[in-house]
């Protein structure tokens, strides 16, 4: 779903010259596109829609500690979540983390992409590899590395304490700060790639034109480059937001059992409490919230940039 949405945004970018195709003859329908997308559609239906529908049905069941899962249809789980402060806090935390991570990724990733584009040939490839590095390493080992680095006896805390900047170790493990930092690290490549793609479409002569009209380099950046990569930043933001809000491994390792987010909450309900229906309801609510936020943002962006980039 994320990929599909972000694709929509990418499509609103330039170079989509929408020449209307000639009206197709009604009797000779072209079936090739449908046939070609059939395997993908089948896969999509079997692997995504069916489990999703089953999860939804499961979320309507009820659960008792002694009776197990009851095959009844009711909205009790949803009412529980909506009325319980415990769940409110977890959902709020999830989206607070996602928003912070998205902002950080935008602030770090967009300049990074710009600097990367300006680099000369061998360095550019190398630095791109470094930026994309996190994607090449398994999420578990990467996050464990973070834990080692940031633990109370980790390198950073030890170093800061030994030079006397802090007296007691800063807590990264099991804190929101830690989760935000680690998620940002993991997700920033998506932002860099997305901004990079929109930078590639930039005509360098346009920057030259601004210079020739007397703009200082920073003004060129602010008035000419930035507005043109905003769609890239926004589509990157949507990818990052969606991935951050539904992230599991990183919050699970850094946040642990104490600092739950929606994804780890659902996991715990499934595997520890064995309250599958409640876990399913959490998952469905997370999905709905994600879809609403992302589709809403997408709409907003499309409306704002339709004029300019179509």
């Amino acid at each position: 779903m994320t990929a599909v949405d972000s694709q929509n945004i990418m499509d609103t970018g330039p170079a989509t010259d929408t020449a209307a195709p000639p009206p197709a003859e009604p009797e000779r329908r072209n079936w090739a596109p449908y046939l070609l997308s059939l395997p993908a559609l089948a896969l999509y239906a079997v692997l995504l829609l069916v489990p999703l529908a089953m999860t939804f049905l499961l979320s309507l069941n009820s659960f008792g500690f002694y009776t197990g899962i009851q095959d009844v249809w009711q909205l009790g789980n949803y009412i529980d979540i909506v009325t319980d402060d415990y769940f409110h806090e977890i959902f709020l935390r999830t989206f607070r983390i996602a928003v912070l991570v998205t902002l950080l990724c935008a602030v770090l990733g967009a300049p990074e992409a710009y600097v990367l584009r300006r680099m000369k040939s061998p360095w550019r490839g190398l630095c791109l590899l470094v930026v994309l590095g996190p994607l090449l390493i398994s999420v578990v080992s990467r996050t464990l590395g973070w834990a080692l680095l940031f633990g109370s006896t980790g390198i950073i805390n030890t170093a800061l304490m030994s030079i006397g900047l802090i007296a007691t170790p800063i807590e990264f493990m099991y804190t929101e700060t830690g989760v935000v930092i680690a998620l940002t690290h993991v997700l920033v490549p998506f932002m860099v790639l997305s901004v990079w793609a929109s930078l590639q479409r930039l005509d360098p002569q346009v920057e030259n034109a601004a210079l020739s009209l007397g703009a200082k380099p920073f003004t060129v950046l602010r008035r000419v480059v930035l507005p043109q990569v905003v769609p890239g930043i926004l589509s990157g933001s949507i990818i990052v937001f969606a991935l951050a809000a539904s992230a599991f491994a990183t919050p699970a390792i850094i946040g642990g059992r104490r600092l739950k987010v929606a994804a780890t909450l659902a996991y715990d309900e499934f595997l520890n409490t064995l309250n599958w229906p409640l876990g399913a309801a959490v998952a469905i609510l997370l999905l709905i919230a994600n879809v609403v936020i992302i589709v809403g943002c997408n709409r907003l962006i499309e409306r704002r940039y339709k004029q300019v980039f179509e």
Partner: protein
Amino acid sequence: MPYLVLDKLTKRFGQWLAVDNLSLTVEKGELISLLGPSGCGKTTTLQMIAGFLDPSGGRVTLDGADLLAKKPNERGLGIVFQSYALFPHMTAAENVAFGLEMRNIPRADRDRMVKDALQLVGLGAFGDRYPRRMSGGQQQRVALARAMVIKPSLLLLDEPLSNLDAKMREEMQIELRRIQRTVGTTMILVTHDQAEAMALSDRVVIMNKGKVEQVAAPQDAYDNPASAFVANFLGRTNLLQGTLRQDGGGCRIDVAGTAWPVAAELPAGPGVLTVRPEKVTFVDGAGVPGLVRARVFQGTQWLFEIQTDAGPLTVIRQHDGQILPAENERVTVGWRAEDMRVMAGTAGGA
């Protein structure tokens, strides 16, 4: 004192010499055209003057000051880019206003100047339009307005009218000429349209493979081409292979059995005679014999392809009622000695 001086300007891309020791002086208020085949280094030259490309060698001075020491945004030049380079996220009016904004012109003046500039290029009603929703010619005119509205003292125009229809092009040519005359803007114009270069320029610079072949007033370059390349490049010309001889009266060139006196002193040996198609006439007496291979009506003139012993010859005659030969007719052609140019060498070596 010359206003703009390019001194042995050179640009290498790797091994490729895009601009080779180019020297040129431009007077204040002059309109100079760069003419030359595609890829001969015209855009590269302009980009070096503008500061977007660092020269591999040479110097550029503007009004006595070293231009290369200045950053591109401090040079104060107006530039129309070959690719327009409009700001895609700004409307036409915002595009034009950008340079004025950078110069801190007050809002009210700015709006008026933008409006006038857009009016001038015939886009008064298109101020709110984004570039992507404009035709190529409209975008080009926005680019022109954007460069002219800041009233630069030096305007670099890289094929600024290439996408306009004939009528609009003519209007813009007149406008450029008017600005040059009244404001005294110095302009360097790159164009592929020879008629445009001839009509607008005080001088033309004919370039080939990164080198200057000739700098001259348009008519001079046309009538007295400095090389066979220039003769061939500027308008049509006929290249006839002949033999140079020295005899009692001076130098002569034999072409297809006819001898023509040569004013210059050239060594004996192979020689090339060039003559413009419109200077060739059908004669009754002595001349070069030939056969009319084809004749084509071109509206105001007739075009003849004539086969002679010295090679094919193109002749252009006005369509003014004179009696002209038919196809496959045997004719004799001639020209006045002062209308021809003779160079030593062979036509292939040009």
